[in-house]
Every structure is written in C-alpha cells, then in structure tokens.
C-alpha cells in the first residue's frame, strides 16, 4: 500500500514540476476557451438580437381585431399587413421580419358560419425573437379558438412552418453536441498523459530498473494508474472549465445560455461522469501503452480507439435524439457518459442511469487495472522488441 503511494508521488512530481508537461496539460483547456469564445463572437454577429427591438409581425388577411388582441398580450410588436405570402416568408427566413401570420381568406366570415378556416404561423427557430413572437401569437390564437368554441386549423398543413435554414439549424445542434465534444477532449487529455507513460519507460529502459526492486507488480501498476488518473483529471477539469467559461459566448447568439442556471447538483453530476470517464480512458490507454513496443506504436494504437470513442459518442447523440435510450445502452462506456452529460445539461437528469453509468465505468476501470497488473507480471512489459 505504502509503495503504491511512493510510486504515485514520484509520477505526480514528474508531471507537475515539468513545465513542458504541465503546459501540455492545461493548454487544451485554454485553447477551448480561446477558440470557442472566438467562435461565439462570430455566431453572435450572425444571429445577434437587440433586446429593445420591436417584434415585426406580418399578417395576411388578418381579422380587424388582430392588432388589438396582440397588444393585449403585452407583446411589443409592430403589426404590418402584407400581400405577398412568399415574399413575407422570405423576410422571416432572413430575419427582417419575425413571423408571418397567414389567415385564410374571409377568415371571420367562415368562422362565424361554422366552417374551419386555417391559420398558418411561419417562424424561424434560429431567430430567438421569432421564436418568442411565435409562442405569443400561437398562444393567443389558440386560446381564441377555444373561446369561440370553433375549431379552426392552426398550422395544420403538412411540413414545418419553421423557416430556419439548414446551416443555422446545425449551429444549434452544437448545443446538443457539447457532451460529445467534451468526450473528445477527455479522451485526448487522457491520451496525452497515458499513451507515453509506460511505453516511454519501456523505450527508455527505465521500467526494468523498477522491476528488479521487490515492489509488487500490482502496486507499481496501481501507483502509475493513480498518478496518471489524477493528472488526466486535472487536465480534463481545465478543459471543462474552459468549455463552460466560453459556452455563454459560444451560444450567446442563439439564446440565453446561462451556466448559472445549473445547480451545484448538476455540476457535481457532470464532475462525477467526467472523473469516471477520464479514469476509464486512462486505464485503457495505459494498457495500450504497456502492450506497445514504443511510444510511437502506442500512439498509433490509440488512434483507432479514439475513432471508436468518437463513433460511439456521435451515435449516442444522433441515435437517440434526446429520447430515453434503452437500459442496456447505459452499459456501453462512452455512450452512457455522453448520454448522462446530455441529460445533465438539458436538466433531464435520471439518477438511476447516472448510477448505472458510474458503476459500469468503475467496473471497466477495475477490469483494466487487473489486466494491467497481469501485463506488469509478464515479460511483455520489459522486452518485446
């Protein structure tokens, strides 16, 4: 037990007193912050909103009472009747208007005669103003339809009334992708630390020096894993802080992202997922490092693993589309971590799945440490030229 800490202390000293290594640990975090902040200001130029701006609502065939009804809802809107539906839709799309409310011809008459006239509200999700106006107008018309006890068709046509363009929607998906991005950063953090570790010692011939001492192989493996994990965790926390700090700027153009809206519990949950995931990555990469003949080979072997991590990460974001995945899916590492993070960020946290995720990862870690101790016990660890 004592020896484990002796080894751990030495490895940590190595990481935290070597300026170059230390820099390589914190640099990714700083880079995330810089890059994302930069991307953020770029986005906010694209979709920036002015809080004092009036909502611009265009109408076609609107009943005479529409303007007043809208005022009654308290929406600061400028209502303008227009003629050309397609031109107006174009304006909503390029955000010079917020929404278009299109009433069927002779709406009032048809309504009073018991027909079911239709209303269409065209909007643009990428434009927050449009989203707000849409909600207000939709609510108003809907309650009116209840009031007059007459069913009329509200946005009843086929297809979407959302006029957001593809590129803009993809910008929004970034929000969804955050857990995945975080996953990649966690993996690269662990990779920077763990890949070199054992393969490097093998290459430089320093591991044999250790192996002729009476220290237990398992203690050596554990001491190394602990030190590597602590280091990788520090590195990923720096990345995480960088990500969180730059997030409001990154998302600023697309709506209110206030990281303060998450409570301590959410952050603790995120921290928990990060820690188990990083340690799991570290153990896997240490095994690769122990099996490789050189640092170069270790990095080559780590690449396909990174690919798998990315693949699983992506599929967890795209595959479920936010719906609750099946139970067994939470037994897949990376997939469960990504899902858990997504759940935490979207405030739809499931304690059971969180627990399963943490336990699954811990089991993988235990298995990995066992395998690593086995490798340390075999000749492979010293010479396999």
């Amino acid at each position: 037990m004592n020896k484990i800490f002796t080894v751990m202390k030495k490895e940590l000293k190595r990481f935290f007193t070597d300026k170059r290594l230390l820099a390589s640990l914190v640099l990714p975090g700083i880079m995330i912050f810089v890059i994302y902040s930069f991307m953020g200001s770029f986005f906010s130029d694209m979709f920036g909103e002015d809080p004092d701006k009036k909502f611009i609502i265009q109408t076609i065939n609107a009943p005479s009472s529409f303007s007043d009804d809208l005022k009654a809802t308290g929406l600061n809107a400028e209502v303008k009747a227009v003629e050309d539906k397609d031109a107006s839709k174009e304006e909503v799309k390029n955000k010079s208007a917020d929404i278009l409310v299109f009433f069927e011809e002779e709406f009032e008459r048809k309504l009073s005669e018991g027909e079911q006239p239709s209303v269409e509200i065209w909007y643009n999700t990428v434009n927050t103003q449009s989203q707000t106006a849409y909600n207000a107008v939709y609510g108003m018309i809907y309650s009116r339809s209840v009031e007059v006890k007459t069913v009329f068709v509200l946005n009843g046509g086929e297809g979407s009334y959302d006029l957001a363009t593809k590129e803009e929607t993809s910008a929004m998906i970034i929000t969804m992708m955050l857990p995945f991005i975080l996953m990649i950063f966690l993996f690269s953090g662990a990779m920077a630390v763990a890949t070199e570790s054992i393969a490097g010692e093998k290459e430089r011939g320093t591991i044999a020096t250790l192996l002729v001492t009476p220290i237990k192989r398992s203690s050596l493996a554990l001491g190394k894993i602990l030190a590597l994990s602590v280091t990788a965790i520090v590195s990923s926390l720096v990345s995480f802080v960088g990500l969180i700090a730059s997030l409001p700027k990154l998302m600023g153009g697309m709506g209110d992202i206030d990281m303060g809206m998450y409570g301590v519990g959410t952050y603790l949950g995120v921290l928990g997922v990060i820690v188990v995931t990083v340690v799991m990555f570290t153990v896997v990469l240490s095994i690769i490092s122990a099996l490789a003949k050189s640092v170069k080979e270790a990095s080559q072997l780590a690449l396909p693993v990174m690919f798998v991590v990315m693949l699983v990460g992506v599929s967890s974001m795209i595959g479920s589309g936010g719906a609750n995945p099946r139970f067994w899916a939470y037994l897949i590492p990376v997939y469960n971590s990504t899902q858990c993070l997504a759940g935490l960020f979207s405030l739809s946290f499931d304690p059971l799945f969180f627990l399963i995720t943490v336990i699954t990862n811990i089991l993988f870690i235990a298995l990995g440490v066992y395998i690593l101790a086995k490798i340390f016990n075999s000749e492979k660890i010293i010479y396999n030229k």
Partner: protein
Amino acid sequence: MEEILRVENLKKTFKLSRKQQALEKTKNKYKVAVNGLSFSAYKGEIFGLLGPNGAGKTTTLRIISTLIRADEGDAVVDGESVRKNPDGVRKKIGFLTGELKLEDFFTPDYLYDYFSALHDVPKEESERRKAKLFSRFGIEKFAHVKVGDLSTGMKQKVSLVISIVHDPDFIIFDEPTNGLDVITAKTVTDFLLELKNEGKTIVISTHIFSLVEKICDRVGIIINGKMTAEGNLKEITREKPLEEVFFDIYSREVGSDE
C-alpha cells in the same frame, strides 16, 4: 565454500518476430538463447560469464534477476528460487546493466531516496549510505542535477549506486564496463573488487578477456547458450592464456555444431 547462486539446467527460447528474423538473418521462428545452462557462484567471489555476442549471457542474467522467466530449469539465490519466490530473490540481489536506465527528469538524490523506499531501507540508514556512496563516487556535486544533464560516466556511476541502495550481498552486473571510458571503467572495476573484499558475491558477464583476467576468481565460458567450461581462472589458464583457451573451445563447439 558456501554456494550463493546455483543455476540449474536453464532453458529459454524466444519467439522471433518477423523483424527479428530479418535482423538475425534466419528463417527460424524460434531462437534458443539459453540451452540447458548450469553453473554456481560461491560466497565472496567474482564469477565471470564469458562469451561472444549472442551467447546468452544477458538472457541468463535477466533470468537470475527475475526480469524474465526461464522455460525450464531454475536459479537459486541464497536459498530463494527465482521460480518459486521471485520477490525473495529481488530483495537479495543488486542488478546492473547498461540498459537499466534512470529517468532523465529526476536528480540522483531523488532517485536514490525513491529506490531506497522501494527497497524498504529505513530512512536513517538510507541517508547514511547515500552520503557514503555519493562521496565514494564523487556524485555529491551532481546530487541535485537532473540525470539527463549528467555525463555518460556519471550516469553509470549513479546507476551503480542506485542498484545497491539496499546493500545486497549478491550483485549481478551485465557488461560492467561497456561504453565507459577507461577512467570510469577503472572506478567501476575497483569498486567491484572492494565489494568482493567486503564479502559480497558478484557475477559479471563480459566478452572482454582482460577484464576477466583482472578481477574474476572463477569463469564460465558460454557459447550458444551452453556452458562449455567452468572453473577456477588459475586452473583454466594454467597451460594457455584465457584467450587461447577460449578459441580452442569455440572452434570445437561451433565446429561440432555445423
């Protein structure tokens, strides 16, 4: 004479990778590195394992120092078997070779303390021994310089010191003077003689005849993984110089093999 090391019928075969096959210019998938090797070393002597390149010296010493496992046979160090109790053996031996490296990033002082701790040497005793050994080898001045910044000779001295932090009674040294300048080499061989005078048992491997003649009490000539001659240096060299004895054996062995 008390037998400190007994090597019995050691066998070790390596599976060759394709790269190794190309390197060794062979089509064989396997290489028998050590082939039924036996010998003994007795208390207070320096035993020299003499053999040409590829004879199996390093492999033998790695097996004795528990770094690798023999396929067959056993080595017993002061009553502990490498097969049954490798941990026990590790406590009793100091192993040194040019290929055992120290991490460049750390200082000799730090590494000494680290290895001392791994060997469970009590702190006070460790400090006393460190002072003595550092002064003996002129390491004091460099005690706080990173290993990476030391000269090759100084590195080798630090390695030597660190391999004996636990004051072992049995020391294995693979090619003790390889790659050292004459001055550092002399420091090392002088020290080996000093250790011998303290009553330690030492096994070295080398292909340098003069080194064997200078410091060894007994010698074993190893060729193709087999012990072809073992005995007192004086007895072996009674009629001919060591070099001639060696070539006689070598031509007989290699001739009979082909």
